[in-house]
């Protein structure tokens, strides 16, 4: 691009096959306003055309919680250490849903905007990041329920169950870890999800399996001895147990498990970033 005075600038068009991670990040930063746009959009369309409207936001997460507490805690008699089973399940569900929902919705980011991205350019990575917002409804509702239930148990059982100490400050960090893992995995799956609808169905089965092998509905101490060594390989086990530990004041997962989980998230994120870049341009052609 040499310019001399009096002559118009000459533009050279060439394919750019490089990866340029820094440039990508910069570009996303320039377009950051769109994250809010897509986040807002994912809420607005949510319960349009329903009679109850926004009330669904409260109803949908609550039913599985109440029934789960009845069946797992009541009928099956799953132990819950020293807190009421409902509270135990509630706290576990907050951590799990900070992962499950954001992954599923973040993964749908491209798919939900198929029409839009065939028409105009935007850094596609904005889409999973924006759509993820929809997935935070459930954990937020559960946190609200927790805030209501704590005084109730203080009144009925005479104890807050909540352990107020500096450890409590780590609770949001575990949720952040769950959300980061969700975003990293969404980077991996959102291109597939845009290309074929059934990826989502398959993922739903996979996630339900993942939830069962994560100590959400049961405490990690219930895991049979021979599987104990493998539990912490699952980063979500660390997140869920760590979050419960922070809230109830129980022992945290071992430090190496926390480090391992963080390491796993970093690896999944970096590889997901690279993989997303690899597929994104082709995805637009295949829509």
């Amino acid at each position, binding site marked *: 691009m040499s310019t001399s005075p009096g002559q118009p600038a000459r533009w050279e068009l060439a394919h750019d096959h490089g990866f340029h991670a820094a440039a990508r990040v910069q570009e996303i930063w320039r377009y950051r306003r769109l994250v809010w746009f897509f986040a807002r959009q994912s809420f607005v369309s949510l319960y349009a055309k329903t009679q109850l409207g926004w009330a669904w936001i409260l109803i949908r997460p609550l039913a599985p919680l109440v029934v789960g507490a009845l*069946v797992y805690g009541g009928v099956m008699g799953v132990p819950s250490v020293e807190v009421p089973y409902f509270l135990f399940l509630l706290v576990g569900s907050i951590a799990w849903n900070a992962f499950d929902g954001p992954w599923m919705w973040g993964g749908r980011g491209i798919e939900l905007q198929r029409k839009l991205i065939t028409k105009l350019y935007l850094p596609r990575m904005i889409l999973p990041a924006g759509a993820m917002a929809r997935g935070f409804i459930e954990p937020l509702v559960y946190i609200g329920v927790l805030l209501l239930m704590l005084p109730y148990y203080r009144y009925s059982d005479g104890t807050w169950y909540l352990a107020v100490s500096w450890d409590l400050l780590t609770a949001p960090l575990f949720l952040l870890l769950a959300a980061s893992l969700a975003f990293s995995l969404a980077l991996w799956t959102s291109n597939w999800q845009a290309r074929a609808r059934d990826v989502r169905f398959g993922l739903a089965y996979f996630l339900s399996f993942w939830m069962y092998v994560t100590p959400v509905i049961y405490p990690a101490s219930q895991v049979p001895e021979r599987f104990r060594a493998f539990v912490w390989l699952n980063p979500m086990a660390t997140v869920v147990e760590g979050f419960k530990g922070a809230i109830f004041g129980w022992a945290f997962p071992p430090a190496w498990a926390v480090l391992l989980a963080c390491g796993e998230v970093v690896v999944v994120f970096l590889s997901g970033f690279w993989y997303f870049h690899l597929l994104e341009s082709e995805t637009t052609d295949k829509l």
Partner: protein
Amino acid sequence: MTEDVLPATPMTPTTQWVIEPRSSGPLAATHEVWEHRRFVDYLGRRALRKLYARTALGWGWLVLRPLLPILIRVLVFGGLVGLGSDGVPYFLFLTVGSLPWNLFQGSLMWSTRGLELNRKVLDEVYVPRIIMPIASMAPSALDFAFNAGVIVLAALFYLVKDGTTHLSLGLHTWWSVVALVLILALALGIGLFTSVWGERAKDARLTMGQVTAVWFLMTPVLYPISEVPVEYQGWMMLNPMAALVEAFKFGLFGTVAPGVLAFSLAAVLSIAVAAAGLFFFSWRDAIVTEN
């Protein structure tokens, strides 16, 4: 038809059209469905095509859909939690229990969406509206066939492994057949109500999703009814699906006969719900047609 009425005049056409007001009511509705039965096939295919559109595996899901949830549940509830299964291998226990339940849940969900999914068809041609919730059950019927195939394979597997299929077929197998018919009646009965609602609002689908998830846990599919604490067993009688699923399992395993009282209650309830659904639907239908 008219030949014996007007035989003398050679100029009259051989067919005579009689235009009369459409009769309504559950009997007329049933008759009308039978007359338009060809549509069931067409609309059923339509529902299936919609279900598997834009998927990578396409029809492969017909095989995976019944298998995946069962495999996950066997691993978790049979393996980790160690739920009882009346002396039958847990895998077989679960596949047999899931068969009637999936038929119920699938039929109910699809019939709820029947009117909503076929709105375009309804705008373009005359089809009795009541066909829609019925024909939309096609995917669940197909799932049923594949689920049944899984049972046969599982039975063969246990025949090779244990030397017995663990199944016991005989005169009592009629329990299974009767239970399936009643389950379909119950699903259709509820679906006739919810499809009318579902046509107007997405809430119907969302609600039924929640209701069936709860209902599933309260029905002895994952666990045998004998594992339920005695003080709750009386309450379970109020759930018609509990008795029907138990009766279906009895038909194939021949182990625990269902309580006569619970089963009769479930049968009466299912038939009553189906009849009420037919009444409700034809009543709504008359109003919709007028407008």
